[in-house]
């Protein structure tokens, strides 16, 4: 199935070339060294993305990630992260088809696999703990920079959680509605809503869902990347309803702050918190808090070095203390 998607993207890429349109292939990669009771080295995902203007109104973006996977035959897995065909309807309004980063949160939509763009080494727990659906496959509309407040919106209908890359597993569709404004330069305020019905028996993130779940996600974000001070905070409230447990609420969020000493040197901190209500059945309940303090050296816009200390406090299991260094590049 993934191979089908890969060939769809590849066909569009070839089509773009034959039309003589501008096509670019770029990517991201990172190498890390970490210390957590022992020193270890590793490299992260190798992310390749293709952008192409197919015609005056049609454009394509494909993103493929190659990553280590101990269960894969070759110990590496290929993941089609995004296949997006955009048709410009009028002005700044577009029709979007394909697999997208669910536009619920600033981080997920802005950075995702671009670690050279990440302000910290890793994603916040909000994204690594599967609180929100990172991807959605479907169709929708988007608009941006409308009016004086630079209003933007996304309305997207997708297959929803539990679906495969090529078909829906049930009749229910996920719905994402997101909006944001940029009232002044370097400031973005966002608000979003997601609804999905997850069928009993669905396989979500490698786990079987026992009961039908009605999920509502409400997210808010504030992103301010000034010339000196950087602030990014997001909060998601997840309401998961099952007939047996009723509605259970999970709160997940983080706050990041950085300060540019000079243009290239940025010390930063980040605090994450996830709190599950007792009786939560859809998520794996394990209240977690994380504190990160680090330093970022931006050699240039394509090469960034970060050094970071992270403490994770788990409700179940041992706390984690680690020091990580990362060299992230774009190419």
């Amino acid at each position: 199935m993934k191979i089908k998607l890969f060939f769809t993207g590849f066909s569009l890429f070839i089509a773009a070339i034959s039309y003589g349109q501008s096509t670019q292939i770029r990517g991201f990669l990172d190498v890390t060294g970490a210390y957590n009771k022992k020193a270890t080295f590793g490299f992260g995902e190798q992310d390749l993305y293709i952008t192409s203007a197919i015609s005056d109104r049609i454009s394509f973006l494909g993103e493929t990630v190659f990553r280590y996977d101990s269960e894969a035959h070759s110990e590496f897995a290929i993941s089609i992260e995004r296949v997006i065909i955009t048709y410009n309807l009028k002005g700044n309004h577009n029709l979007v088809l394909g697999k997208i980063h669910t536009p619920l949160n600033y981080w997920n939509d802005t950075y995702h696999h671009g670690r050279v763009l990440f302000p910290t080494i890793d994603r916040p727990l909000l994204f690594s703990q599967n609180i929100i659906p990172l991807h959605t496959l479907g169709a929708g509309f988007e608009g941006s920079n409308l009016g004086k407040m630079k209003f933007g919106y996304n309305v997207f209908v997708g297959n929803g959680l539990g679906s495969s890359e090529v078909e829906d597993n049930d009749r229910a569709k996920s719905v994402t509605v997101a909006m944001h404004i940029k009232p002044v330069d370097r400031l973005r305020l966002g608000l979003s809503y997601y609804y999905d019905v997850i069928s009993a028996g669905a396989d979500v993130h490698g786990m079987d869902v026992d009961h039908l779940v009605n999920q509502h996600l409400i997210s808010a974000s504030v992103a301010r990347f000034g010339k000196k001070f950087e602030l990014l905070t997001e909060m998601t409230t997840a309401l998961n309803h099952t007939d047996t447990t009723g509605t259970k609420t999970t709160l997940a969020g983080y706050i990041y702050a950085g300060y540019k000493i000079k243009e290239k040197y940025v010390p930063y901190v980040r605090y994450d918190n996830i709190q599950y209500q007792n009786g939560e059945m859809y998520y794996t309940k394990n209240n977690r808090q994380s504190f990160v303090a680090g330093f970022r050296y931006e050699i240039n816009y394509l090469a960034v070095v970060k050094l970071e200390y992270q403490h994770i406090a788990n409700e179940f299991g041992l706390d984690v203390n680690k020091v990580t260094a990362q060299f992230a590049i774009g190419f």
Partner: protein
Amino acid sequence: MKRTTTLISIFSGKSAFIKYCFLTGCFIFTLSGKAQQTTLTAIGNISGVPAEMKQSELKAVLMGETQRWKNGKRVVIALMKTNTPLGKTTSTKIYDMSGDELNKYWLSLVFQGKSQAPVFFTSVSELQNFVSQNPGAIGIIDKPVAISDVRSVIIDGKASF
């Protein structure tokens, strides 16, 4: 009083070396000041790009916030590379960013699929040719030009800013 005396002693020819250094320093200071004060001109293909714009509209276009011109032509942005003197001035004066910040801005925007990347050039003549050959193309150079299919765009009533 003391400062005036010092200046007089420098110009009185007591030390030719100090005099040379002082004049060279003045010359370099003047040149660097002039580099920062380079005026910019927006040029556009006559198909799509309007003859006059406000500074805020120009900035919105060059930030990738406007996808289409009023006649429906796609906005195509042409810029000097950020490591050229003109590219540096463009980054600072229009985007209020350093060259690296501007490159990162576009890397992020293109990665998100929100915009097509600008086309970057190392010479003004290449940029002008690109703008003349591509309907909807707008670019930033240092002085007005008069070549076929390209117009200098008046920004806030001025040819240069």
